[in-house]
């Protein structure tokens, strides 16, 4: 079952990231994702960066498919199915949201007065959703030093006291997740990672998204510190689109 929804607004968030807004009558929890189809192009997994009645996809232009999405305008239709996957767990108290690249998209619905963000990007133009954090509670990390801390994301983590947070949520490319995992390991157990791998079916059949026998589309995409620490494949190896094993 696929739903067709009309794009109502389009916002350019950074030079390479844009958001498509639409109304969709399904309940979605932060951390879940949908499979998005623009007819004529590949169907791809995308998190929802807004989960109320108005939904939002925040998309980083990458290859052909995301470029095709960038050609969409308000009034155009997209085709989605879902939501799929296990949401982030919700906790009381202060939270830390760590997002690299477009990773902040899936964390965005969790931004509130109790949350602090660590945003990492190459340069300041690429920082995503900095202004959505309350009272400047966004710690920026740029590789070129154009804003905030100069360095990679772990430099941002080193700048905060992790023990003050009930939960830490991390989203981004697997290599970044692995770096964050290594950095946080031993400091706290209250961490959830949102993993990303290439997905074909989105519903736990094709095995293209698996890590250590867990399907990210079904058992994930969110996994906690303990689960991640027991994984042999995480951060080290995965299968490519044909099923060939490659190493990070």
């Amino acid at each position: 079952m696929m739903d067709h929804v009309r794009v109502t607004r389009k916002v350019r968030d950074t030079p390479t990231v844009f958001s498509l807004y639409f109304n969709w009558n399904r309940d979605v929890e932060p951390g879940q994702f949908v499979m998005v189809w623009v007819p004529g192009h590949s169907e791809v997994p995308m998190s929802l960066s807004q989960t109320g009645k108005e939904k939002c996809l925040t998309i980083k232009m990458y290859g052909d498919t995301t470029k095709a999405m960038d050609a969409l305008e308000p009034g155009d239709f997209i085709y989605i199915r879902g939501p799929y996957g296990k949401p982030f767990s919700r906790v009381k108290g202060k939270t830390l949201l760590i997002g690299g690249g477009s990773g902040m998209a899936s964390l965005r619905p969790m931004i509130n007065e109790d949350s602090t963000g660590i945003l990492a990007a190459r340069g300041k133009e690429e920082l995503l959703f900095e202004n959505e954090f309350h009272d400047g509670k966004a710690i920026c990390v740029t590789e070129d030093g154009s804003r905030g801390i100069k360095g990679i994301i772990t430099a941002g983590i080193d700048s905060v006291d992790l023990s003050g947070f009930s939960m830490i949520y991390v989203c981004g490319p697997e290599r970044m997740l692995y770096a964050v995992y290594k950095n946080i390991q031993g400091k706290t157990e209250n961490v959830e990672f949102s993993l990303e791998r290439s997905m074909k079916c989105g519903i736990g059949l094709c095995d293209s998204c698996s890590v250590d026998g867990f399907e990210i589309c079904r058992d994930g995409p969110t996994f906690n510190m303990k689960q991640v620490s027991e994984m042999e494949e995480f951060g080290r190896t995965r299968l490519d689109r044909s099923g060939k094993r490659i190493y990070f």
Partner: protein
Amino acid sequence: MSGISVKAGGISLETPGILASGILDENGYTMKRILQEGAGGAVTKSIGMEERPGYVPPVVFEAHGGIINAMGLPNPGIDNFGDEISKAKESSKPVIGSIFASTPEQFMKLAERMVDYGVSAIELNLSCPHVRGFGAEVGSDPVLVKEIVKNLKGSISIPIWSKLSPNVTDILSIASAASDSDAIVLINTVRAMAIDIYARMPVLTNTYGGLSGRAVKPIGLRLVYEVKKELGLEIIGVGGISTWVDAMEYVMAGASAFQVGTALWNHGRSVFNEINEGLASFMNEHNIKSLAELRGVAIR
């Protein structure tokens, strides 16, 4: 649950439910986990000579009571698949290597490599397009099927299973052609498609796909029953099994063991243990010592 252990297609299975080819069996870690969580064996994704990325998504569609898929036989090629089998074998349960090809010679090469990798049996996916006929499947040509099976049985030491397509006019002629196999596996998916009326086009990138899941159970059951009744061959049933009742129906229709694929989608990995427990308690209640006692009892 010793009562539900079976011998089927020349191998022994602690539990009678086998993971079907193409579902969660591309990555060795996944097969290992599923085997540890109740599957009696696992058939690998169908592997061919060359690496293939498969079709661009959409490759699946959720239909009423089932899934339509057109994955396009993605696979890393036989040379790249050894590690996945080794990983799966850490479960100490049988791994069955599924292979696809267009000619008897290719089937032979693939089977030999699978033997090297240590699989317990070979499953021939006889449902891919071939060149001799036009647009037809390898598995709808009895002459070709006979040649492939005979060839392999002559030189491969482990059991050979032939997985047949339901998309044929006369299953008996195909099954007869494959009768040298250690088991006939029935059924592969039923040709089907999905259209989205708002997009005004087929949903699957490949247009055509195969239907699986609950919707096809009555179709698979019939083919198993018919082949068992008319030819008496050893059969492994597959198609729409998601509960122990479904599995028992296949056994009573004549299957020695069964495979589960699409049910992983709506039931998750626990489907195998749920089925195992259901079968065991039914057998217990009816005082049946071995699943084999029930094999084919529904045949009239």
